[in-house]
Structure formats: C-alpha cells, structure tokens
C-alpha cells in the first residue's frame, strides 16, 4: 500500500471510529456504585479514606503528622539520655545470642559448598539441567491447563 492510500485509509478510519456511538453501560453499573457509596456513607470518618475526612480533621491530622515527623527529626539529632543508652546496651547484649546462630549458619553454608565442590561440575550441570527441565514441564502444564480452562469457559459463555 502506498503512502497516499495509507493516508486516505487513515482519514476514513478516523471518521469511522469517531462516528461510533457510545456503548450503553450495563444496567448493573449504577446500583453497584450506589451500593458502595451507601456503604462508605455508613462508615465513621476514621474508617473512610483520608481525602473524605471533614476538613477540620484533615487539617488537624496533617498538623499532627507534621509535628510528629519534625519531633522525630529533631530527636534523632540529639544525644541519647543515659537511661535510654543503658536500655539499648541491654538489648544489644541480648542480640549477641544471634551471633552464635550466625556462626552456625555460616558453618552449614561452608559444608554445603564443600559438598557441591566434591560432586564435580558434571554432576552439577546434570542437576541444573534436570531443574530446568522440571521448570519447563511445570510451565508447560500450567499453560496447557490455562488454555483448556479459558477455552472451555469461552465455550460455556457462548452456549
């Protein structure tokens, strides 16, 4: 198709598409929306989305959030009180128990690494190939099931 034909078709198609009438909305649309609206109206202010709160509460909550944020920023820049420092030290001491768990995990990983090295590259490649094959088979089966399900649901929709 040459460019003149293409431009002509583009213009004709544009007119055809713009002349399409609006599709009537399903009769269930308005009842659905009104049901949600009725549910929202029945909720108390704090159960509704923030933009729908009364103006005074929106202003107050925004001011409160800003104050809290400012306080956190200011507080984080200040030296910690002695009591809080002691509490944090206590917690850090308890967390030291986690260090032993970390060492155990590292030892297990090292043992796994030695085991894999002793298997050799051929065995590892075979294992990897087997894993890929299993993955492909699973994806293939899911695809087949999805196609069958979609085909049957479409066939049911037509009957």
């Amino acid at each position, binding site marked *: 198709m040459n460019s003149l034909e293409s431009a002509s078709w583009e213009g004709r198609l544009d007119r055809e598409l713009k002349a*399409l009438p*609006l599709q009537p909305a399903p009769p269930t649309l*308005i009842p659905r929306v009104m049901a949600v609206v009725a549910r929202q109206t029945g909720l108390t202010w704090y159960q509704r989305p923030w933009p729908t709160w009364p103006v005074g509460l929106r202003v107050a909550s925004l001011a409160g959030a800003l104050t809290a944020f400012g306080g956190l920023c200011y507080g984080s820049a200040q030296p910690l009180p002695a009591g809080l420092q002691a509490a944090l030290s206590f917690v850090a001491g308890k967390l030291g128990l986690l260090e032993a768990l970390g060492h155990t995990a590292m030892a297990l990983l090292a043992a796994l690494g030695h085991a894999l090295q002793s298997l050799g590259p051929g065995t590892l490649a075979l294992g990897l190939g087997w894993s890929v094959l299993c993955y492909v088979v699973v994806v293939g089966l899911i695809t087949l099931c999805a196609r069958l399900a979609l085909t049957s649901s479409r066939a049911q929709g037509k009957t």
Partner: protein
Amino acid sequence: MGEASHPLMTDAHEFEAFMRNYQDMVFSTALRLLANRDEAEDVAQDVFLKSYARFDELRASPTAAGWLRTVATNLSLNHLSRYRSRWSFFSELTGRGREESGETEIEFPAEDGPSADPVQTERRELVEQALQSLPAAQRVPLVLFHLGGMQYDEIAAKLGVSLGKVKTDIFRGREALRRKLERKLGPAAPTD
C-alpha cells in the same frame, strides 16, 4: 469546603443523575481500551467512586466529562498493565487463535430507537467488533490516537514505549482493521 457540603452528605439522587449522564461515555472509554465488558464495568465503577469523592467540584464543572474520560483512560491503562501482564503469556496464546479464526467475545446490544438506520447500525457494530478484536498492543494506541485525540509522542509517554513502537503498532492496527473490515464488508469498505 465545609463539612455540611461534603460529598458524603450530598443527595444520592443528584449523584445518580450525574452517573446517568456520563455512564455510557465512561463505560465506552474503558471498553474500547480493555475489550472486556466485565473489566470495563469494574473500571467504570472505580471512575465513579473517584468522582464521588470530588462530586462537589464536578457536579457543576463544565470539564467534568473530560475529567471522567481522563480518569477512565488512566484507570484502564493501569488495569491493563497491572492485571494483564501476569496473564499475557496465556492470553497471547488464546488471543492469537481467536484472531486467526476471526471470532470475538464481545457482543454488543443492538442500538435502539426508531430512527436508527439498520445498515449503518450493523456497519458500526462490525467496526466496533473489529476494533475490539485487535490485540491490546495495537488496539490501545489506536484508540488513544483516534478516539482519545492524543498525539504519537503523548501516547508513547503514556504507555512508556518508544515513539517508533507507537507508530508501528498504530499502523499495524489500522492495517489489521482494514483487512477485518474488508473481509466482512467487502473491499470497498469502509466508505466515506
């Protein structure tokens, strides 16, 4: 905006009338992008719920229709990118077979009214069905260009793809539409 005039306090009948005025436009906008009536209804519901939160501004606004159309377009595109991508692998497979066989899932109710020309009505239904049967990659930019009034670069920015891809997809979409319509209406279709 005082508490007394808050949208939640407004008359439900007024909002219902507002929806009646715009529901076909919102639904059509979503349907032409999504090509699925159930999903289009879900999107239309979300659009009207968003409009309800701003009903005080929209009820007398001359730009309400434009606002609703923009929100419907954006929500439809979000819907396509969010929900379709995870199923694209499967839907591409089934969609291809549907396109080859020329069948479509969309069924449009007949236009009522005694003045409707049956030939013209049938023709428009065929155009609409052909449009809906296009793959999303071609249909969406085509709809945004011809019905949304957007330029190529705006569509590319909106869809997050290159300008070249938008031009190619729209060209392919037009050609696919031409083939479909020629098959159904004859080689002369569509006429001026």
